[in-house]
């Protein structure tokens, strides 16, 4: 009996091209059946209607409430998150609010980065979180270099120039494209380590610490060789002398300088996301968010100030002692250093500025 009814309704829906009206069921032909069957019939029709309604209903994922979009993106790793937020404009708008947060949760894609021996503009990455997915990272600056160490997003890259028997060292953030050139060295045989996050160092400079020279140097590294040590010491001394002056210059900066930097700066993709007003907000938020950290830093800085004077004295003595003891290499070094020194100071001023700019861009991408 039920099958018969189904058939009837099916014929109806096919001929009328819709689900039969309830009134149809009250026609004499249907009344032939008992009341119970009629009820069943009505129920069936209701069921069919519901199914039809369910199918017809449009489900517009792009108009999903913001809270739900965020909840979904919370479960994604950074790479998927970026793809996800580019799906449509409304999802993109949530990204602007949540990107920083998302990055701070450090749910990025931990990668093994491998330096290639050949001169290649890309580096190979293996993402460990995503079933060893292979990614290619574009890093033109890293070509021909070796990765000797890393902290957070930063890599230490060493490029040996056998011809001149010197080694170029630089810090690179592959995600933002920002880089920091370090002074050339003669040989790097050992491991190179950071003692702090380059980003944080930059932060402190922005806060106006006059004693940044020491801090910046601390992130450098343990490198073998007296020459390296000496050039480091000399630079340290010079920088602490010039520290205050450089600071002023870099913060004001003539228009000419700015133009030149603009030309020099390589395009940083992440910078586009950021408006200038956003930068200030971001900084404010960061400062508010980490008052404890700052306190520690200040304390650290104070401690350093106290010791810096003593250090410098002993440093100078050490250098002089070494010069006396080993006249040959010292001379060689100083002649090389003197020529370069002026250029380096100029370059460094600019680099610091560039670096600071890219740092603000980097903040957007997060750590």
């Amino acid at each position: 009996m039920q099958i018969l009814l189904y058939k009837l309704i099916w014929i109806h829906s096919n001929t009328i091209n819709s689900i039969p009206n309830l009134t149809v069921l009250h026609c004499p032909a249907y009344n032939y059946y008992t009341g119970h069957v009629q009820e069943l019939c009505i129920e069936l029709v209701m069921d069919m209607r519901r199914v039809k309604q369910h199918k017809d209903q449009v489900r517009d994922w792009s108009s999903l409430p913001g809270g739900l979009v965020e909840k979904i993106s919370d479960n994604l790793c950074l790479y998927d998150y970026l793809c996800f937020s580019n799906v449509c404009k409304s999802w993109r708008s949530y990204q602007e609010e949540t990107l920083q947060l998302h990055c701070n949760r450090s749910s990025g894609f931990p990668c093994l980065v491998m330096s290639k021996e050949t001169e290649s503009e890309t580096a190979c990455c293996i993402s460990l979180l995503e079933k060893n997915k292979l990614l290619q990272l574009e890093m033109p600056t890293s070509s021909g270099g070796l990765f000797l160490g890393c902290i957070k997003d930063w890599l230490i890259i060493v490029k040996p120039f056998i011809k001149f028997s010197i080694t170029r060292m630089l810090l690179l953030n592959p995600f933002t494209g920002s880089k920091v050139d370090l002074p050339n060295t003669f040989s790097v045989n050992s491991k190179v380590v950071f003692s702090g996050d380059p980003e944080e160092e930059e932060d402190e400079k922005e806060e106006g610490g006059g004693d940044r020279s020491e801090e910046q140097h601390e992130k450098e590294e343990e490198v073998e060789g007296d020459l390296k040590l000496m050039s480091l010491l000399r630079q340290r001394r010079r920088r602490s002398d010039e520290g205050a002056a450089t600071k002023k210059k870099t913060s004001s900066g003539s228009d000419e300088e700015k133009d030149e930097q603009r030309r020099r700066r390589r395009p940083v993709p992440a910078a586009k996301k950021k408006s200038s007003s956003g930068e200030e907000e971001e900084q404010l938020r960061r400062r508010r968010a980490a008052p404890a950290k700052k306190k520690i830093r200040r304390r650290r800085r104070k401690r350093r100030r106290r010791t810096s004077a003593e250090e410098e004295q002993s440093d100078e003595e050490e250098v002089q002692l070494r010069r006396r003891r080993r006249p040959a290499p010292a001379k060689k070094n100083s002649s090389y250093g003197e020529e370069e020194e002026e250029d380096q100071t100029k370059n460094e001023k600019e680099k610091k500025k560039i670096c600071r700019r890219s740092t603000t861009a980097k903040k957007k991408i997060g750590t």
Partner: protein
Amino acid sequence: MSTAATADASSSGDTTEGSVRLLTLQSEDGEVFEVKETIATQSVTIKGMVDDDCATSTIPVCNVTGRTLAMVIEWWNKHEIGAVSNEKELKEWESQFDTIDDKSDRDDVYDLLMAANYLNIPTLLDCCTSAVAEAIKGKSTDEMREFFDIKSDFDEKEEDALRKENQWAFEN
């Protein structure tokens, strides 16, 4: 995830249930469900109503169809304390939400998401959002658009800018 739950849910709403209070929920399309108060209060929204003594008459659940509400009630029944003794069993039951490659499954998940959002059911919300995230993992933006049936509303220039922005990482 079927309408069979409807019968299940309405039969559980037996009025002779002793001291347990029954709540009457009415879906958007007029279907009525009777649910034990202890179960329905898994929804923060309904709990608030009960606490404020607003749940005496039929509670209209707008924006949620009968079909979806039946699924939600099935979820409540499974997640009632003591309903499923075995944690593993519950996980197994939940795993049916994990595969949403089918369009109809996706529609169901969408409905459940909206219902869970409206009724504020944290457990269901978490389950659905992670299911969606799981489904789109490793997909490119275009594949995601296809998955969600969303047409890009960026113009060509914007599209280019987006592509450049994420240039630092592309699949091999």
